[in-house]
């Protein structure tokens, strides 16, 4: 677990990739996340995370379609690997377990 731990931002991107399915290319991921987080993200941050996760084997990618807006350049579509799905689920389980162990927040603050 420790070796391949995901950063919080990487986890968000990974989940976005899973959600967007065939539409998961750089800009679409960015737009989706910007909507969720309500702030402008930098392409550098997104791309770095994508490349890192691809290196670690969370993602695979292949060339996609060309649009006129892109100046004739192809998209790169990302897909999450089964390994990534497993890690995501592990993380969710961990969170659920910990949330269950948490005392009621309202009570906890007093």
């Amino acid at each position, binding site marked *: 677990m420790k070796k391949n731990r995901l950063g919080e931002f990487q986890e968000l991107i990974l989940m976005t990739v899973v959600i967007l399915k065939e539409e998961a*290319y750089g*800009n679409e991921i960015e737009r989706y996340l910007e909507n969720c987080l309500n702030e402008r993200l*930098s*392409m*550098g941050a997104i791309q770095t995370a994508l490349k890192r996760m691809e290196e670690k084997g969370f993602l695979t990618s292949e060339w996609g379609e060309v649009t006129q*807006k892109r100046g004739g*350049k192809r*998209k*790169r579509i990302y897909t999450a690997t089964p390994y990534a799905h497993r890690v995501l689920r592990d993380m969710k389980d961990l969170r659920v377990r910990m949330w269950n162990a948490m005392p009621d927040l309202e009570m906890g603050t007093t």
Partner: protein
Amino acid sequence: MSKHRNISPPRWPFRLLHYFLRPEYAEEIGGDLEERFQDDMERYYPAKARRLLIWEIIKLIRPALIRKVSGPARLNHFGMFKNDFKTIFRIIRKEKLYTGINVVGLTAGLSVALLILAYVHFEFSYETHNSNAKRVARITIDYLDGQTLIDQDCESYHLLGPIMKEEFPEVADYARAYRMWESVIKIDEKRFRASKVYAVDPSFLKIFDYPLINGDQSTALSGPLEAVLTESTALRFFGTLDVIGQTMWDSAIRNTLKVVGVIHDSPANTHFKFDMLTSYATMEPTVKKRESQWDSNDTFTYVLLNNGSQYKQFESSLERLTQKLTKEEKIKNERIIGQRIEDIHLYSHKSYEAEANGNATVVLFLFYVALLVIIIAIVNYINLATAKSLDRAKEVGIRKVVGSSKVQLKVRFFIESFFVNLVSGLLCVVLIYVLLNDFRQIAGLPADFTVFDNPLFWMVWGALILFSTLFAGSFPAFILSSFKPVAVLKGKFTHSSGGIMLRKSLVVFQFAIAIFLLIQTLTSTEQLQFMQEKDLGLDAERMIVVPAPVTAEEMKNFKPFTDQLLNTSAFSSVSLSTCIPGLPTSTMGSTTGINLIGATEEHNFNFFIYHIDHQFIPGMKIELAAGENYQETVHEDRVIVNEEAIRLWGIRDAKDALNKKIHLWGKERSITGVVKNFHQTGVKSGHIAMILMQSSGFGDYVSIRTAPGNIKEQLSEVRELYKANFDSPFDYFFLDQKFDSHFRSDQQFQTVFSVLSLFALLITCLGLFGLASFTVAKRRKEIGIRKVLGASVAQMIALLSTDFLRLISIAALVALPVTYLIVNNWLNTYAYRISITFWLFAGPAALVLIVAFITIFSRTLRASEMNPVSSLRDE
């Protein structure tokens, strides 16, 4: 979406992107960027979209996304750079002498330059801690005689501040600071002396930007009998900073003060330092009791302008005020002018300055010399590089044949220069760390003066390294890279005449500077000695000065105290006066426009006045030019003046002045004695016109002349008698040390300058040493052949040294006239200066020649004694 116009994004950010981005990501990220740009175009205006695009691209520069420095995707020139570094390290290892000389020279040059720059920065940093500094001006008074300026006085009338605030629209506020007499502070039964005390308006704290660290800022100093202490004074008096509401008895105002605030100590870089402030309201009744409010200008006045740019307007307002007050006959022969407080420390040298100020000329002089020293070090680098150009020419030739371009070669030589400079820069940080403490003492900087935690220091450090890299690297970069490979490799290239000329002129330049620095050092040393040995017109040796007790009750014991001292054989005279020689003009009174009664011409000269008793003149061993000393009984209608005073009145012979009468302070007084001029304010400044009045048993200083003997024992005897007779705390100083303290700034300048010229000479000789080494190495074969043909060792040394010695002689010829001008100008700033003698100039020039010869000699001797076989056998 369908309607959107496809505006093409700017191209250059994409070119930048392609330069650093990994090629395999180019299509994907490039496409994403263009798409995003189009989206932004729909959302924002075009300029913003472009800005966002550029910003986006800059943020793409991340380790994960840029090209790797090695492997198939590395930068194009990577191999080249790698090779450059490898060969640079090889050269450094091989040419230890060459590298050593460069590094030592540059390290020394950089360290000296950085230390001096730090000093210069400190001197120019005065008042910068004050956020209002640009808006604050000091009001000063010029004394005029017709149109001629007689004297300038920092202190002004206490009514001026209120008038200005009311009448000048540009003046926001004013603060007055009235210098208080030295007083004794009594807290319970403990007594302390308080020396730098000012009575100030409450606005003072605001204008000078001194927040209270304890106490109520809004009310502090607004009522009478309030005091604000600095941190260290509070600790000295009470041992704690929690002193609000404490009371203390002040002997100067004979009343009890209440502490209402504590502020930080005055910073080292302000012209106005103090230990304690009392409220102006404490003093105001005394001031208002005067017959006329326009009699004495004895208070500092600072005004705060609404806006720093209104200074011009303020100056013209002052002109109008001067005219108005002159017309109303409130002031006469005076001009009220302003002075920005930022300019006070370096440019103001008026009477009654609050602190001894610095001198911009001296500071700038040091600054230029520091630059010269670093230039000398850079010149060394260039010289050695040209001297070695023959060796490097082959390397350049081969590189060019293999396909190196000029630009690549230039980059290569700049990297080499950068490397040497960087190493020197790092060593110089170590050197500065070691030297900083000594430098602080030499330059008279405050004890908490540091350089390393100032970001500016590191910026200058970086800038100097860069500057030196570019300058030093430029010669090899531009000349060496232009060599023609064919000529070089065929062996036809034997020398570069341009290089030799450059080298020769640079050597001349270096030595000219070294000679100038040495002459200036010698001159300042001689001038300092001259001033220290100059006849003061009085005897300051073996004179103990004790501040007099402050209260009148205590003064009743003065006579017994004197008698007890004189009863022992250790003391020959005791005198009491309101001032003593060796103190600045700020400690005396002054009055302008004293004229002889019945004089045909009236002038408005300034006269300095203090009170002495009948023991003072014989006690100080001041000589009388005419007339007689005061008697023990006080005659108020008699005065003694000095020769300078009668000179201003147009009297040549002192005897003629006797029995002439003057009007002084509402009384007619006749001159009964004329003393020879003595150096009241030290020998740096000229004589001032003085009137010594007789005091009837009051004074601030007790001067005690001691007989030969153990001064320590005599001092403790004085202390015991003082304590037996008076309550005031005992304090003392030696008169000769007071006089010596006038030279402290000259001494500092002289020491700093000596160190600078020593470094300059050292670096210059290092360069010469390197050059001589290379020349000798180049001429090894020639030396061998000459020796085989019968040349003697002496002839060989002469042959090898003449070239250099000729250059140094030229340097001397160039340096001497320029130096003469500079040194002469510098000496003219002193009222009493030495005259320039032949040896003052010939000495340093000869010294440089000898040192240079020894430097060369060490190389040539070995070469000349060498067995010719060893140099000739390998061909």
